[in-house]
């Protein structure tokens, strides 16, 4: 079905839409963005700012994102804040979309942008009720239907239940870059890093480039030889969507063998965890927001951080663990629920965090981790 547009019409005139969860609960509202149908995993994001970054974060691939903040689109869409080449969410759920955006950087409305990219959304529903439902029942499959896609709810529920789930999904290959590319260092070049794109956001290589790193962004399928072909001072494992249990760990293990400085974030943290022999598991409803308190166990300090993860690493908090690459310990935990948020090897220059130090959107508290990475590469040289 081709998505048609709701452009130029106020929310109140938009056609009816319905959201159906796989457990049968449904919400009726109005179409937002494209009209049509879409499926995905229903997740909620609690950030009050940064919708443009959220929409373009590849980690949201195949997910229908529910915004808990009621007003969305107030600052329109600009040319600077997108985090990748397109919107990745498979559906968008908001309560009160803006009619008129206001920002000196705004170029177009969010409604137009969603429509142009064919993203089906729904507005005007009780997003808090939906969020509470997901919190209690856990993330689940969902469908949004409007226009010609509308049908009786039993039919719609059937369609939702046929859609694929997130557990066991291999999605890196769907979001990664097709060709390698280079993000040059800003100012004097100090290091070269091979960054494996599992769903990388634009801000991540930028944060490294700011620190004098030339970043070679490589496709998820890059082999160990291809990684070392760029003669990297360090290797970076990006964030990304999907179940980490599906990932091929050959490259990660190869880097560990060679003791090259390694920094992983989000999906990259899960890959490191699995390569070290830890398990990963799916959280009930994940961490998605920009207000999560994470404690750095080495300093005791708390940082407010940006999260977007549905899976987590299963590692003991109370002790270091034996791994094939030496002792490993949990360096960071989320204070809300004690989820593992960071790992490091005690004897190799290797660490990772489950969250987003590049923080777009979100607070910049964790930016120091890029300095830590630079320091590892510096130390390795010495």
């Amino acid at each position, binding site marked *: 079905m081709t998505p048609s547009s709701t452009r130029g019409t106020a929310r*109140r005139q938009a056609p009816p839409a319905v959201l159906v969860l796989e457990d049968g609960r449904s*919400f009726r509202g109005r179409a937002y963005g494209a009209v049509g149908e879409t499926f995905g995993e229903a997740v*909620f994001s*609690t*950030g*009050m*700012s*940064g919708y*443009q*970054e959220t929409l373009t974060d590849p980690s949201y691939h195949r997910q229908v994102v529910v915004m*808990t*903040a*009621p*007003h969305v689109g*107030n*600052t329109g869409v*600009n040319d*600077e*804040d997108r985090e990748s080449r397109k919107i990745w969410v498979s559906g968008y759920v908001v*309560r*009160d979309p*803006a*009619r*008129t*955006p*206001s*920002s*000196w*950087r705004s170029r177009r409305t969010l409604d137009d942008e969603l429509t142009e990219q064919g993203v089906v959304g729904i507005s005007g*529903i*009780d*997003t*808090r*009720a939906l*969020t*509470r439902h997901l*919190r209690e029942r856990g993330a689940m499959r969902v469908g949004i239907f409007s226009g010609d896609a509308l049908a009786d709810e039993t039919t719609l529920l059937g369609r939702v239940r046929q859609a694929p789930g997130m557990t066991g999904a291999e999605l890196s290959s769907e979001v990664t870059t097709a060709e390698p590319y280079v993000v040059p260092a800003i100012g004097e070049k100090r290091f070269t890093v091979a960054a494996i794109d599992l769903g990388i956001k634009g801000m991540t290589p930028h944060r490294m480039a700011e620190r004098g790193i030339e970043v070679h962004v490589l496709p998820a399928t890059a082999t160990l030889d291809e990684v070392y072909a760029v003669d990297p001072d360090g290797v970076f494992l990006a964030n990304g969507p999907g179940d980490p249990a599906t990932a091929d760990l050959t490259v990660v293990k190869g880097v560990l063998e060679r003791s090259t400085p390694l920094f992983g974030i989000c999906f990259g943290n899960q890959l490191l965890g699995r390569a070290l022999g830890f398990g990963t598991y799916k959280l009930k409803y994940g961490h998605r*927001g*920009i*207000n*999560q*308190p994470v*404690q750095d166990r080495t300093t*005791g*300090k*708390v940082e*407010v951080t940006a999260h977007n993860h549905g899976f987590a690493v299963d590692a003991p908090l109370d002790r270091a663990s034996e791994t094939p690459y030496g002792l490993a310990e949990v360096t960071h935990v989320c*204070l*809300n*629920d004690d989820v593992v948020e960071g790992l490091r090897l005690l004897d190799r220059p290797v660490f990772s965090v489950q969250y987003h130090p590049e*923080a*777009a*959107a*979100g*607070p*910049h508290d964790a930016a120091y981790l890029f300095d830590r990475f630079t320091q590892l590469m510096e130390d390795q040289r010495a």
Partner: protein
Amino acid sequence: MPKRTDIQSILVIGSGPIVIGQAAEFDYSGTQACRVLRAEGFRVILINSNPATIMTDPEIADATYVEPITPEFVEKIIVKERPDALLATLGGQTALNTAISLHDAGTLDKYGVELIGANVEAINKGEDRERFKDVVEEVRRKIGHGESARSVICHSMDDVLAGVDTLGGYPVVVRPSFTMGGAGSGFAHTEEDLRRIAGQGLMLSPTTEVLLEESILGWKEYELELMRDRNDNVVVVCSIENFDPMGVHTGDSITVAPAMTLTDREYQVLRDVGIAVIREVGVDTGGCNIQFAVNPEDGRVIVIEMNPRVSRSSALASKATGFPIAKIAARLAVGYTLDEIPNDITEKTPASFEPTLDYVVVKVPRFAFEKFPAADSALTTTMKSVGEAMAIGRNFTEALQKAMRSLERAGSQFDLTGEPGDKALLLERAGLPTDGRINTVMRAIVAGATPQEVFDATRIDPWFVDQLFLIKELADEVAAAAELTPELLADVKRHGFSDAQIAGLRGLREDVVREVRHALGVRPVYKTVDTCAAEFAAKTPYFYSSYDEENEVAPREKPAVIILGSGPNRIGQGIEFDYSCVHASFALHDAGYETVMVNCNPETVSTDYDTSDRLYFEPLTLEDVLEIVHAETQAGPVAGVIVQLGGQTPLGLAQALKDNGVPVVGTSPEAIHLAEDRGAFGRVLEEAGLPAPKHGTATSFPGAKAIADEIGYPVLVRPSYVLGGRGMEIVYDETRLAAYIEESTEISPDRPVLVDRFLDDAIEIDVDALYDGTELYLGGVMEHIEEAGIHSGDSACALPPITLGGYDIKRLRASTEAIARGVGVRGLINIQFALAGDILYVLEANPRASRTVPFTSKATAVPLAKAAARISLGATVAQLRAEGMLPARGDGGDLPLDAPISVKEAVMPWSRFRDIQGRGVDTVLGPEMRSTGEVMGIDSVFGTAYAKSQAGAYGPLPTKGRAFISVANRDKRSMIFPARELVAHGFELLATSGTAEVLKRNGINATVVRKQSEGEGPNGERTVVQLIHDGEIDLIVNTPYGTGGRLDGYDIRTAAVARAVPCLTTVQALAAAVQGIDALNHGGVGVCSLQDHASRLTAARED
């Protein structure tokens, strides 16, 4: 790092009387802090001169000193209590300034008291404008963002004039250093403006310093509330965006949380700058507030200022997010870190996070310009509002419209009906920020203005402007619809329209709209404020309504009592009523009820989520209250609704609630009517054989003249159906009567003018009493210092009465009982009497908690509001005596002879207002109430208690120096003895010629000084006004004759306000002041805690 164990006792400084810019929010924050510190096991010593606060309840601290907040008195307390630490960041600017004085004077070092919560260096860096600019510069160097507006610091008028050139011309902003609520600041568009504002500012600033700044008028304005712990963890609790762009004090702006029109990039810049500033300033632990201006053209960010303490905005942010800033600040001050403190609301997650909102909060200010007709009502960088209402909705329009109707004043809601008016004129008017500007903007929209035109005229952000258009479009739809469908109704309710607004648009009655709406099943649900946008389950039932899908009110089993609060603070209805509501909640919770509080005032203790079992942060209109009653009735049994503790607001709803089948407990709506309706009340008095002053009503001058001729001048005239003495005046002759009727716009056949005989030279008496249907408990008898004719809220008073004898009390008791019985009171009643020529007249009766309940309760150590709440639910006085809530025998009418004397003094907002020429407003007291707050002085004798009340309200009485006396003819006799006393105390007297002559004839020497109207003398002899400005006068006595005109005394009194010289405007106040001066000169003014007073009183009662 856990709690510090090296300190055991902490002195907390409160904020003193409610004044503009420093209001009930500090009662909220101080109460939270004291409770937390006690719970942590510290001995808490509190000083606050404001009796109307919860924080000065004896059970909140271990030792509560209701004493003046001056360095001298705080030192006395330190000497007596020897606290280990001093916490001064929760009592506003007053507490902070006092702490700095104590530090600078070496007092803290001398007694080994550690300042906790903020260090002196940080306070100075944050508050001193020059040093703060360095802070901002350093921040910019470190993180590349943030700058100060270009500015120059000036210490003289020459500096100021030169400064304008440096900044590139007018307009410029003038900001005096170290003043509170932005006092004395403003925009200067011309040199004349500049001389006036900067001249005043130099005078107001304790360091004679003002800052001139480039104008950033019209920029977007934001605030961040931050907290930092000693481990350097920093969180942003809340972002606030001002609807009104730069140019209006944030206290006077409509504000919105969270920020609505920033991208994440820009928001993170503000956050980074805010965190860098708090670090650079060095606020080690606690909260602070930082204000930013953002250029809407290019995003340039200017850091305006920071408050290194808990502020009004912190209270707002706490209520808006559910993150209790003051409570957490207190914990941080004693050593905890954010991650060690649990989030009260989720109980499972720590406080080291940033709240995220799934709703929108709007705060609107409430002004009182009608009380100060001469004052310039244009809004500037000086705060002028006296209160605020906050509302929560699931979107901006819902929150905004709820907040506007929470203001409870005619015309506060958008009026989208009728002839819109002239667009161009409306747009021009909208360009000037004033009270109600948003309504003008809406009228302009209705009149056809485009979004661009609105933006050009007001610089209000286009997103907000569009929201106003959305409201207007919905109104059009409602007006044009063939019928009210469920879809349309639900839609407009989702955008905050009240039933009354819909009724207006449809030409229906409000109750008809409500019936239709209920029939169609369109009702609100209640959502929870949970700090985390539903990510975690909330344990705290803090609710707001929304026309959304899912209701979160949980079923309950215990019977609920719904307590209606008092809404936004305003003159005449302030924190005193919140006090009574909070007490009712505590007492009824203890008595086994589930207490449900309804209020919309973010500054209060009642809207703290842990005061009551459930909190509904909702407007106090009939519609909103009925929906809450409905929701609670669905949840479980409802024992009743209490309307008599929140002042006139809930009282006014009583009858309508009853008509809608809601059980109103306590005094019945019919009984309320008996007391409130003049005719009905007259019959009650008649039956009881009690006299009232002669009176009549008229709708024209001839009618009024006939009444006045019959009852004799002076007469007290006022429009009917007004509150707080609005428009009330004492008229001494026919000419003025004619003028009054002429000027009054509120008189019509429907709204007659009331003409009462004015009892000249009468003693006014206030009585608070409890009545259960059979037994009267006389709570307290207050004798006013000022004569009848001055609004009781503005008059000082003493308890126990200082000149009434046993016979008078007996008569008062009998009259009070007769009225309480005649009216049918079940709970509290307040009666005002006037004793004239040995006749006890009844002036009025209010069948509700009065403004004086907290004062009476503290002065007599009896919790009257708690008792009233219990009586409302059926308890008897006898039962409460048996329980110990009331004394076993005796009452407030027969206090032992050695009971302490308590004096209440009103605090006036004169210094806040200027007329449009920039001159001060007159300070004469009258029948219309204009005070914003009160203080209490308590001691064993009247003189000392009065002196303390003056020190608490206005600064210490002088004990020597020069006194200037100028009194009206009618006061000349009563002036002689006090004047002689002043001389005996070594004062040099100055007087105007007429007064000097009378003094001379009585053997008292006084130097004649020139009146202002006489101008400077031939040899440069200065006028009295010049002498005041030159700081050569220590005490002023000036009683005016009549009111209204620009009398000679006007310049004297405004000069007194500007120079903060004590100025007495009645002879009664002079007599009291002389007693106070006498007490001070005989030395040995001590301090005594309320707990000690209470135990002595209890002991005396039991003897």
